[in-house]
Every structure is written in C-alpha cells, then in structure tokens.
C-alpha cells in the first residue's frame, strides 16, 4: 500500500514535469513550424535556434503586472483560469504512455491510473472545461469578452456531439472503455489498429474525431472565438500575465490530450506498426541517425557563424540518442514510448500544419457545419459501424 502511494506520487511528479516542459516547447515547435510554412525563420535569436524562447516567454509572463480590474466579478474572474487548467491537466491522468516499466523491484504501468471508464472520463472532464471559458467571458464584464466566451462555449458543446459519436466507433470494435485495454486490443501490427481493422475500418471516425478535436480545442480553422483581429482577444481580453498564461497552457494541454486520445483510439497507442522481430525496433535508431548526420553535414557548411558550433552539437546529441535506442535493457519501455510520442507528435504536427495553412470559419459557417453536416455524418458512421459489427 505504501509503495503504491510513493510510486504514484513519483509518477505524478514525472508526468507533471514532462508535461510542463512539453507545453512550453510545443509552443516553440508551433512557432517554428508556422514560420517555416510562411518562409521565415521564426524565433532564432534567444538561444540556438530559439530554443530558449519558451524560457524567455515564461519569464516575461511571470514578471508582467498581474492586473485585477475593479469592474470584474472577482470570484469568477479568479476561478475561470483555474477551472480551465485543472480540467485540461486532469485528463492527462488516465492516458497510458506505454506498457509496464521495471525500476528495481517495482513494476508499474506507464500510466497514472487506469479507470475502467477511461474514455468517458476524458469526455466528462473536457465538457467541464467549457465552464472555464464561459465564466471567463462573463466575469470580465466586457461585451467583447462575453461574446467571445459565449461563442466559444457554444462551439465547444456543439462539437462535443460528433466527437462522442466518433469515439463510439472504435469502442464498438474494441469492446472496452478502459484505455489500457483499448491499446491492448490493437496489438500486432498496423493492420490491427482501429483505423484499419474490423468489418468497417474507422477512417471516417478518425477524420470526424480530428475535425471535432480542432473545434474542441479552439484551433484554426475554428478559432474565431479567440481571433485577435475580430474580437479584440475574445474571452481572455481582460486577463494578463499568469492567468493569461493559464488559458494558453490549458489550450495546449487540451491539444495534447486530444492527440493522445486519437493515438489511443485509432492509431494503436504505443504498439509498433509491425512486429519487433521484423525490425521495427531499428526505426528510431535509423531516424535519429539520419537526423544526426544531416545536422553534422549542415554544421560543416554553416550559413551563420554560430551554426558552426550548434549544428554539430545537435548532430552529436542525435547520434547519442540513436545509440541509446540500441541498448537492450531500455528497449522494453523506450520503444513503446517512442512509438506513442511519434504518433502523437505527428497529429500535433498536423494541428500546426493546418494552423499555418487554412483560413478560419465564420461563426455561422462553423455552427452550420457541425449541426447540418458533421453530426449527421457521425451518426451515419456509427450506424454503419454498429450494423457491420453486429452482422459479422
């Protein structure tokens, strides 16, 4: 009993630390990706290739003056970012990052807790996250904030419906609500993943889930409620410094959660795309080795003077990581973790790619899209899935 509590506490601390760092660097990755899509360099002054930019942003946000305007509804004003962040972080607690890991005499799953209602727990927590935005809009006592807050809340609850129906598709195939068992039913190879297996491959569910996930997390093309040029800044107009940072953290944490959900539900979680005996364990070695070689090559013909030192340094780091993947005693837990992060990272990259590419919907187009198109399509998809699963 005691070792359970201590191990859980250690896992919570590790996950929290990794999550906070990932949130900060996710913003760096997003800025770099969007910048390169728009053919500009992005942050590259602060640290090598802007890698210390998130640190600079954190320092700036913490040291900014924390305003508490006199005309706001104080309890709700203070509670709203708290609700947003806590709901966003709570949903990470049931996500399995990999199979069991053995440290000394203790064996534990790479998951904070496994609920046998894991999938609907995440849906429940994300529907509570709507309150953070609605109350932020109301408490700010400002008509732009209220409009932005109401629009954003209406958008989020409207898109929860196709999201839930799209989630129900792979649940019919996997027959379980627990996330750990969901990954277990998709083991074996990429033809066993829920997006490709069963009497009806869940490709439509995957697409509907992704579209609804974009709207749930208020990302482009559905980010009108927080559009800077339309509604001043939407629901977080009156917020500054740490509370503003909380809303941003909540948005990125929500993004990570829905990407992890997509990976677990559709793409097989931490399972490798083909079994390990055919060489899938060499893929990360290969990838990191290529990255290291490219970095070393660019380091030799460096465009700027500083790159002569940073690029080879990164090249060496990548080659060391490639070597770490070859060690046999870390392969049991590092491989699944790599596959999970690779799949989640691909979906997060898709989020950023679309942000750099698509324009945003107008609000009536957005609502018309969900009620008149996405919801009927999701229902039809669930109907066809259920029919085919029952028949075969």
């Amino acid at each position, binding site marked *: 009993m005691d070792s359970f509590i201590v191990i859980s506490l250690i896992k919570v601390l590790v996950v929290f630390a990794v999550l906070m760092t990932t949130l900060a660097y996710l913003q760096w990755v997003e800025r770099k990706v969007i910048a390169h899509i728009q053919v500009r360099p992005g942050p590259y002054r602060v640290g090598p290739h802007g890698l210390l930019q998130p640190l600079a942003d954190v320092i700036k946000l913490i040291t900014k003056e924390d305003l508490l305007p006199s005309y706001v509804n104080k309890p709700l004003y203070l509670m709203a970012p708290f609700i947003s962040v806590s709901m966003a972080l709570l949903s990470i607690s049931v996500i399995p990052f990999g199979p069991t890991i053995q440290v000394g005499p203790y064996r534990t799953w790479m998951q904070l807790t496994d609920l046998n209602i894991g999938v609907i*727990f995440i849906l429940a927590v994300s529907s509570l996250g709507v309150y953070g935005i*609605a109350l932020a809009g109301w408490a700010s006592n400002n008509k732009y904030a209220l409009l932005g807050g109401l629009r954003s809340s209406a958008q989020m609850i409207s898109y929860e419906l196709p999201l839930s129906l799209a989630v129900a598709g792979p649940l019919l195939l996997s027959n379980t609500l627990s996330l750990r068992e969901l990954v277990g039913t998709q083991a074996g190879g990429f033809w066993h993943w829920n997006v490709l297996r069963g009497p009806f491959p869940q490709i439509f569910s995957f697409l509907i889930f992704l579209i609804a996930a974009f709207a749930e997390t208020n990302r482009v093309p559905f980010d009108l409620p927080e559009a800077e040029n339309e509604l001043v800044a939407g629901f977080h107009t009156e917020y500054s410094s740490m509370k503003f940072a909380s809303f941003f953290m909540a948005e990125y944490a929500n993004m990570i959660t829905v990407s992890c959900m997509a990976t677990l539900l559709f793409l097989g979680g931490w399972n490798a795309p083909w079994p390990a005996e055919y060489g899938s364990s060499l893929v990360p070695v290969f990838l990191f080795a290529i990255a290291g070689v490219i970095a070393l090559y660019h380091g030799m013909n460096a465009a700027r003077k500083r790159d002569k030192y940073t690029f080879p340094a990164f090249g060496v780091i990548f080659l060391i990581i490639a070597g770490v993947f070859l060690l046999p005693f870390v392969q049991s837990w590092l491989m699944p973790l790599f596959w999970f992060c690779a799949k989640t990272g691909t979906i997060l990259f898709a989020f950023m790619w679309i942000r750099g590419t698509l324009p945003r919907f107008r609000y009536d187009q957005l609502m018309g899209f969900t009620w008149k198109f996405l919801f009927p399509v999701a229902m039809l998809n669930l109907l066809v899935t259920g029919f085919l699963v029952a028949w075969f």
Partner: protein
Amino acid sequence: MDVILFLIFAIIAVVCAINVVVQTHPISSAISLVGVMGSLAVLYLLLGAEFIAAAQVIVYAGAVMVLFVFVIMLLNAGAEVRKGRSLMVQLLGVPLLIVFLGLTAYFVRRLFPGDVTVHFGGFTGGTAQAIGRALFTTYLLPFEITSILILIAIVGAIVLARKELD
C-alpha cells in the same frame, strides 16, 4: 477512508445546495449547482455506479448546466431583489425544515438499521457493459420512448425560441 471521502463530498454537496437556495444572483446558484452535481458524481463512484457518475458529469454538469449558464448570461437580469417575507415564514421556516428532516432521518434509520454498509467495491454491477445490456434488453421500450421524448424537446425548444418572421 471511504467514510472520509463520503463526509467530504457530502458536506460539499450540502454546502453547495444551501448556496443554490440562498444566493441572490442566479449565476452563483448555477455554479453551486454544478458543485452539487460534481460531488454527487463522486458519491455515485463510492456506490459502484461508475457509468452513471460519468454520465452525470457529461450530461448534467457538462450540458444541462451549461445551458442554464448560457440562459442566465444571455438574459442578464441581475440579482434578485429581496422583498420582505411574512412573519410566519421567518419564525417557522427553519424550525419546520429541521423537524421535517429529523422525522425523515428517524424513519430512514428505522428502515435501514445499519447492517448494510457501503464500501468502495461492494457493488461491481454498474459497469458500462451491465448498463448497456439492461438498457437494450429489459428497458428497450423506455429507451425508444425517451429518444422520441428528446426529439419532441428539440422541436419544442426550437419552436419556442425562434424569432417571429414578420
């Protein structure tokens, strides 16, 4: 351990319920009601009703109360103005409530003397599988009628709340 959890969330539920009744501005009442529903969801988990706990948060706290909060924000009618209450209500209100509660507690205690206790894990039949099986076999007719009821509610709400086309 279970007793501590029950006491914490029961006290939160009662305090939030008193808040719902006592607060003047409807939005504070709405948020307190969300607190009641959340703590009730934890109590359902203690009673082994895991699917109903999740459904309570998704449907009640996450959809119905959001609807309430929307309507309160849109109407923006402000806090309630307290008019005077009659003398009889002020004198007898709280004592009568306590007498009613005492009687209820006495009857409940007589019927369930305390041999049946609730502990976490005492009832494992509240899984999604069990509820799904019962919903689609024994309770199929209420299920279908409820879906028609929801359709009626949707049509009714749209008809009532639309703008008149003049």
